[in-house]
């Protein structure tokens, strides 16, 4: 279009008497242009209607009885082809996975390099790592207490006595024999947690503003923590006033994971295995403050200072106890 206007602009300037001959020639040229431009313009205005029409024909062409450019037969064939194609592909996929799974042991994963050294978790765990309640308002701490009871149900002395055996403390409980043989688990009685067992004080100290928090170490098949020396737990204020955390009691023992609970043999053979726990009784924590606390495992082979993983061998949580 721009071309046409420029041509006609030029024409206008040209019209001088002396140039009649020339103009005649030029007009012819322009006529050609005009004739050419008109269908072009037509095409431009038609496009949308055209497109809609084409689309309609494409969706369903009654003459050739085609839908999306294919007849029923063609569609049938192509769908059949893809059905067979993808079935074969799925078959190949399943076969490859099957062969791969055949090579795996059902009891021990092939590699354990990504899961060790162990991570750490705490209970009660509701929806974060901040434990905040007001002593005077039971509804603020009741969920924590319920969570603790729920979690410790599996550690009831009766249940433990029924399912598990007593082991020799201070040494790994190594069970030889066939891999597929069922392994025995050591008793970890709730009563071992003493003040934090919830037996004497069903509120786990929450009603007194002295909350109990349970710490457990992640299970890793075949892992022997501490290399002969039990792994112990300690807690301190993380980045803050050290005096806010004045005393913590650890149960059982001095906050150690006894060796007899290790190694773990996997959930298929070590069915009744209950992870050993360490209860931390925060008997004197600054009230009305957010106190960030880091509890770490200490022992040989334990890593607790990795920047990228804040749950590896340690755990950071916040205590906020109100009156």
């Amino acid at each position, binding site marked *: 279009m721009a*071309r046409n206007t420029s*041509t006609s602009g*030029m024409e206008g*300037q*040209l019209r*001088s008497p*002396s*140039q009649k*001959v*020339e103009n*005649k*020639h030029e007009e*012819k*040229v322009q006529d*050609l242009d005009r*004739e*050419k431009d008109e269908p072009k313009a037509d095409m431009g205005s038609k496009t949308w209607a055209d497109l809609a029409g084409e689309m309609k024909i494409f969706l369903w062409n009654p003459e050739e009885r085609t839908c999306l450019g294919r007849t029923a037969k*063609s569609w049938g*064939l*192509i769908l059949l*082809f*893809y059905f067979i*194609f993808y079935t074969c*592909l799925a078959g*190949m*996929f399943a076969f*490859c*996975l099957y062969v*791969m*799974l055949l090579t*795996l042991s059902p*009891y021990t*994963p*092939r*590699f*354990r390099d*990504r*899961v060790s050294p*162990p*991570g*750490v*978790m705490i209970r009660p*765990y509701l929806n*974060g*790592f901040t434990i905040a309640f007001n002593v005077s308002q039971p509804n603020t701490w009741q969920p924590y207490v319920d969570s603790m009871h729920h979690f410790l149900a599996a550690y009831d002395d009766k249940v433990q006595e029924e399912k598990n055996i007593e082991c020799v403390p201070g040494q790994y409980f190594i069970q030889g024999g066939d891999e597929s043989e069922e392994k025995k688990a050591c008793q970890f009685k709730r009563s071992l947690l003493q003040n934090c067992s919830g037996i004497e004080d069903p509120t786990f100290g929450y009603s007194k503003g002295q909350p109990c928090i349970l710490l457990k170490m*992640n*299970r*890793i*098949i075949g892992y022997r923590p501490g290399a002969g020396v039990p792994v112990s737990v300690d807690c301190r204020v993380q980045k803050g006033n050290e005096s806010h955390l004045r005393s913590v009691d650890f149960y059982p023992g001095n906050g150690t994971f006894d060796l007899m609970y290790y190694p*773990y043999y*996997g*959930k*298929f053979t070590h069915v009744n*295995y209950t992870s050993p726990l360490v209860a931390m009784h925060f008997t004197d924590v600054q009230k009305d403050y957010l106190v960030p606390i880091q509890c770490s495992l200490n022992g040989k082979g334990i890593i607790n200072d990795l920047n*990228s*993983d*804040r*749950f*590896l061998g340690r*755990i950071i949580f916040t205590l906020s106890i109100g009156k």
Partner: protein
Amino acid sequence: MEKRAQGGGSQCRGSHKLNFCPISLLQQAVVLRDAEKKELPADQLVVGDIVEIKGGDRIPADIRLIFTQGCKVDNSSLTGESEPQSRSCDFTHENPLETRNIAFYSTTCVEGTATGIVINTGDRTIIGRIASLASGVGNEKTPIAIEIEHFVYLVAGVAISIGVLFFIISVSMRYKILDSIIFLIGIIVANVPEGLLATVTVSLSLTAKRMAKKNCLVKNLEAVETLGSTSIICSDKTGTLTQNRMTVAHLWFDNQIYSADTSEDQTTQPFDQSSPSWTALSKIVTLCNRAEFRPGQENLPIMKRVVAGDASETALLKFSEVILGDVMSIRAQNKKVAEIPFNSTNKFQLSIHETDDPQDKRFLLVMKGAPERILERCSTIMINGKEEPLDSEKAEAFQTAYMELGGMGERVLGFCHLYLPEKEFPETFQFDTDSMNFPSSNLCFVGLLSMIDPPRSTVPDAVSKCRSAGIKSAALIPKRFLLLKTGHCSLSPSTFGTHLSLVQVIMVTGDHPITAKAIAKSVGIISATSETVEDIAKRLNIPVEQVNRREATAAVVNGMELKDMSSEQLDAILREHSEIVFARTSPQQKLIIVEGCQRQGAVVAVTGDGVNDSPALKKADIGIAMGIAGSDAAKNAADMVLLDDNFASIVTGVEEGRLIFDNLKKTIAYTLTKNIAELCPFLIYIIASIPMPIGTITILFIDLGTDIIPSVALAYEKAESDIMNRRPRNKRRDRLVNQQLAVYSYLQIGIMQSVGAFVTYFTIYAEQGFLPSTLLGVRVNWESNAINDFEDSYGQQWTHYQRMYLQWTGYTAFFVSITIQQPIFYFRIGIFFKDIVLVILKMHQLKTNFPFIKMGVSPPDYFLNCLSKDSKNKVIWVGIFSQIGIALILTYGLGHVTALNFTPLRFQYWFVAVPFAILIWVYDEIRKLLIRRHPGSWWDKNMYY
């Protein structure tokens, strides 16, 4: 040039864009104002001014001549024809470009003087209008840009449909809306072929570089491909197809026509020079000639020397210099005593010389001119050195020869001589050219010489390559064999073989129709067997109107006829005739012709050199200018410049352009395949809620890291041997990315690749303790920061970071799997096996006639010979090794940089996807086998791209 355009002031308005304005800042014009002659700068002229020009002047504006004296102008800047044209006050033609009484701005007055009235100045002059015509012609999208756009639409369509589909799925799966939107965006982004732009640019640049080596300067990168899809080449004649230099082409003496060598670098002339008539003729040619070599060119080849003199005399001078050696010394030995120079009234040139034979005291009168005028003055004719009376039979022979030479579009000159009797003209005789005190009739006719601006020697071959070279060989090679080798032919099977016309070459020239037709015939634009309507009429002896136009394959269209044609008529001509010559065309008409060709759906290339070509060059899909002969305007308007003016380079260009298209197709198939392998994991992640199989950064590393070099390497792919035998790509039908290609890449190979990668992914997780069944539906807990005792299939507990690290290992494994499977692509497109298959095929053909025995070559040797002939693309190997190398570096070198999400991978995981790579290859071979076995079948239609 630029400087001049900037300084051109008002004269140059509107033409800055083109950067040409052929007037010098300091140009002065002699103007008659206020009854006195003034010297004014040319840009101060106004319409109505009376200007005076003389030989050597540039015409300062378009002027109508009111007084002339022997005025000749060189219109080459306008028409491209450098032959000086005489100007007079007579109105001879209603076309201003043809009439004698108008001289145009920017052309040069070669000789004589003239006075004229200014009728147009500045932009309104013819040349100014050509300039604005050229600048007014919009740049249209190149075919490759259209194809890429089509591809982008396709990818965008796929991306958005999948995105929306999965948005709906994720919403109905109760994902949060925000998450669903993130998925939507993620899917769309994953579909973007990030590396494609780089690859396309690199491919185009590489080709441009390759072409620069062959003296094709590509100004517009995308134009490279355009040349490949070109279906019509509109070529200018003078300077493009021809040498733009008058050369002696034929001689006639002793009743016989001899042809002379017209190639660019003639050193000898092969015709029979033993006849005494030739000796006489050569003497006339040498002596009756005022042209001289400029001094100081002794070391240059004769053909390249600069000559002072007009085109015909130059041609004769060079011709005689080549045959006789030192012309100047011959002239010195035959001292000139009198001369009548050529003028347009008597149409001959005459000179009288002493002879070089000291015994012979006679004077030699030599004369040349328009043959009929010369013959009028002759009473005898020289046959084999003897003078014989010129009877009607001999005159008839002369007429036949004259007509024949004239019919070939050549300019014919007659030559005659006379030895003046010694008695009447003693040595001391004073010749007076005004009173003509010597005889100028009853001379002895010696011969004719005809001259033409001959075609460049490379042109006929190039034209035939463009037009038809491939047809025969294409017919010989079975189509399925082509497919086998390429798998990527741009032609669809149904159209192959039905329509084999290749690139059409049309001549568009400002020259005379007869000359144009002769040149067209000699370069093969009009083939030897084809006829125009006029030829048929002549042969059948019927009026032109009665001839069935469809029978005539060739057409010569005059500019005057073109002027009266409607665009429908022009379309009809372009449709009905395959061999067309347009003669006497104006710049505007060139434009119209190009537009007409484009209306036929053709991709049009225009070659030209003059200012007059520049609008057409600009309008064409690809404009090709001549580098040496070309004017700056033409070069500016063109997309490509042939630096050595070699028309044959166009053929190279066509080949390169087609190659680029093929290679881009390969690149895109390569890119699309991998795109699906990047997209699939994301879709599965949404649907099955498994841990993310591949991360965004990893995808970027595939697209911009490992895959760039291989896809660029595809640009180095050599051309298939049939590349020039194919029909030009049909703009509308043969797309860069068609449905089959997309479906094949997306739904078949892409999916296979993804499945292969998923096997690796599941293997990694299973071997670390997460069996596939555990992984399904874990997404929310898996990604939760708070859950640090996430239990695996074996009862082990994982912290969040440990899981993430495992996830990155999964990314790396997925990445490695794709990287391992991608090179299979090279096998797929048959790069490695192409040669072997070729050899097997040849061996198969040869089984019947045992050529090994005939040739004395053992089969293994033959095998190797065949292999080395098609040298393999070494860059492909670079591509493969770089791909694996980069993957190794990323995995093991950068595996500890957590931000990149790569982890060092166990060695065995590199090979998990190999069975799938093999599966892909086998599948593709089966696909190709079935296509070959069952051409035209359902399989062929759906699986061939």
